[in-house]
């Protein structure tokens, strides 16, 4: 049974990390990061089977790939607080000579990162490759992937979605952050995608919703169900219904904070809504 109090404390602390990272350099992407904080915390601390030390090949453990690399602030915070690198390094986010580049990369050797992402639409393909390697290696572990909903407008995703179903890549769980927002506005206004669930189903995926995508229990329970659906011949898609900017009232339900940092006053307000739990870096 998950210790939800501990997970909740971590969620609040990760929110603070996200806000403080982007505020310090006056750039970065807080909106999507906050919307996926509960998912990342649950994934790394409750769902994934992870080895103690980081190796690139990740043999004998579950792997995670972030396709929408711009939500690096949440990824970095959760990786640091899971022990992949010192939390103090969050101070270097987006600074010159940092391992914490604006978008995640293997190039600077940051533990926890296995592929560069940022140019959208490539994560599902990479995840399929990693999943195929697991099968060749007779490794029963799972590949988890997160992508944005706006990101699905990139055509490569649909090549990958077609391939995974057609080739029974069933050790793969792709979670779509269904927040309905992208840079220029709502996904419905920018490029309506219709029924995403029906599209994945039509391509032959096992699809399920997590309606409360910012609720830890709903995420843990839902993702455990998703895990049970692996190994049955179909790739699994989880539609995670989230609120962009979750946990900071003035950042919620809008695309305004997709790629904008809070000013001093806004940071203070945002942090006051998320008081320190585990300690700031």
């Amino acid at each position, binding site marked *: 049974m998950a210790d939800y109090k501990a997970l909740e404390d971590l969620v609040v602390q990760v929110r603070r990390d996200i806000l403080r990272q982007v505020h310090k350099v006056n750039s970065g992407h807080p909106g999507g990061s906050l919307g996926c904080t509960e998912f990342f915390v649950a994934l790394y601390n409750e769902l994934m089977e992870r080895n103690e030390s980081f190796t690139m090949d990740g043999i004998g453990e579950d792997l995670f790939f972030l396709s929408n690399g711009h939500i690096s602030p949440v990824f970095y915070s959760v990786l640091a607080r899971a022990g992949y690198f010192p939390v103090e390094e969050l101070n270097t986010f987006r600074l010159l000579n940092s391992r914490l580049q604006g978008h995640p990369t293997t190039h600077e050797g940051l533990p926890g990162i*296995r*592929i560069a992402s940022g*140019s959208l639409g*490539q994560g599902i*393909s990479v995840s*399929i*490759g990693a*999943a195929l*390697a697991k099968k060749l290696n007779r490794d029963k572990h799972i590949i988890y992937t997160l992508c944005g909903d706006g990101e699905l407008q990139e055509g490569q995703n649909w090549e990958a979605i077609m391939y995974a179903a057609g080739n029974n890549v069933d050790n793969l769980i792709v979670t779509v952050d269904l927040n309905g927002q992208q840079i220029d506005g709502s996904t419905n206004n920018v490029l309506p995608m219709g029924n995403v669930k029906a599209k994945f189903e039509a391509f032959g995926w096992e699809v399920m919703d997590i309606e409360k995508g910012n609720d830890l229990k709903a995420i843990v329970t839902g993702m455990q169900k998703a895990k049970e659906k692996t190994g049955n011949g179909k790739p699994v898609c989880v539609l995670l219904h989230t609120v962009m900017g979750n946990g900071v009232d003035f950042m919620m339900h809008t695309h305004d904070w997709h790629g904008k940092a809070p000013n001093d006053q806004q940071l203070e307000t945002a942090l006051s809504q998320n008081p320190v739990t585990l300690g700031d870096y």
Partner: protein
Amino acid sequence: MKKYTDTGKKDTRSGFGDGLTELGRKNKDVVALCADLTGSLKMDEFKENHPERFFQIGIAEANMIGIAAGLTIGGKIPFTGTFANFSTGRVYDQIRQSVAYSGKNVKICASHAGITLGEDGATHQILEDIGLMKMLPGMTVINTCDYNQTKAATIAIADYEGPVYLRFGRPKVANFTPADQNFQIGKALQLQEGTDVTIIATGHLVWEALQAAETLNQNGITADVINIHTIKPLDDEAILKSVKKTGCVVTAEEHNFLGGLGESVARVLSTNHPAPQEFIATQDTFGESGTPEQLMDKYGLNASAIVNAVKKVIARK
């Protein structure tokens, strides 16, 4: 003059296919991916021998590059196969981010490169791929000249850790390099010794350079002929050694003169030992339909074009 004998015309893509077959037997980590061109890339035998290690991706090259990058994470050595056009321009961003910037051990193997693809015409005849690939930090770029060299290169790149672009072609051409050659990435091969001019050639133009050198020799002009199979990293030392001796150079490639081998050689010379240079290459143009021989003639990519360029460059010394 050294004598080079064509042991029977063969296509370089078959060198790739046969090299891949041998790798399949020797190295269990080698996997192959193809985007609906298994026959054209001569990957059938690998597919038959190792169905579990062969991935038919379908007509989805972007996905193929991403899957290849992912396979490396589990310790595999992926060889992707499709035409050069679809191996580079179509998937540039995927190669850039998921392979080159991510430092993944993917071997991008590209057939039907250049104008000798022939009758299919300009949509398929990429003449910009060397430029595209050599500009990517960390990418090794290899363009082999015949069947034997392509087979040797295919086997050699499996032992090299890092992204590689291996470029070869469609037509049957002279097969003249040794079957038992030891292929060394980044090492130029001196094919002829001379004092009047250096001819630096890559790919299908290497055989043409040898023919040109014979003709020149009959006219009293002796040429250093250098086979550059690795365009990046370039063997600066071999180029400089030769040009310091001869004082001028002709570069020859089946590629646009912008972005190709010639420009790389020009950079080496201009920063170390400036010398007159002539470029045998396409002149910032697309190709067109025709037989390989007709096209090589029309676009000035053959032995007679090299002979003319040599005369011109010697006059500029």
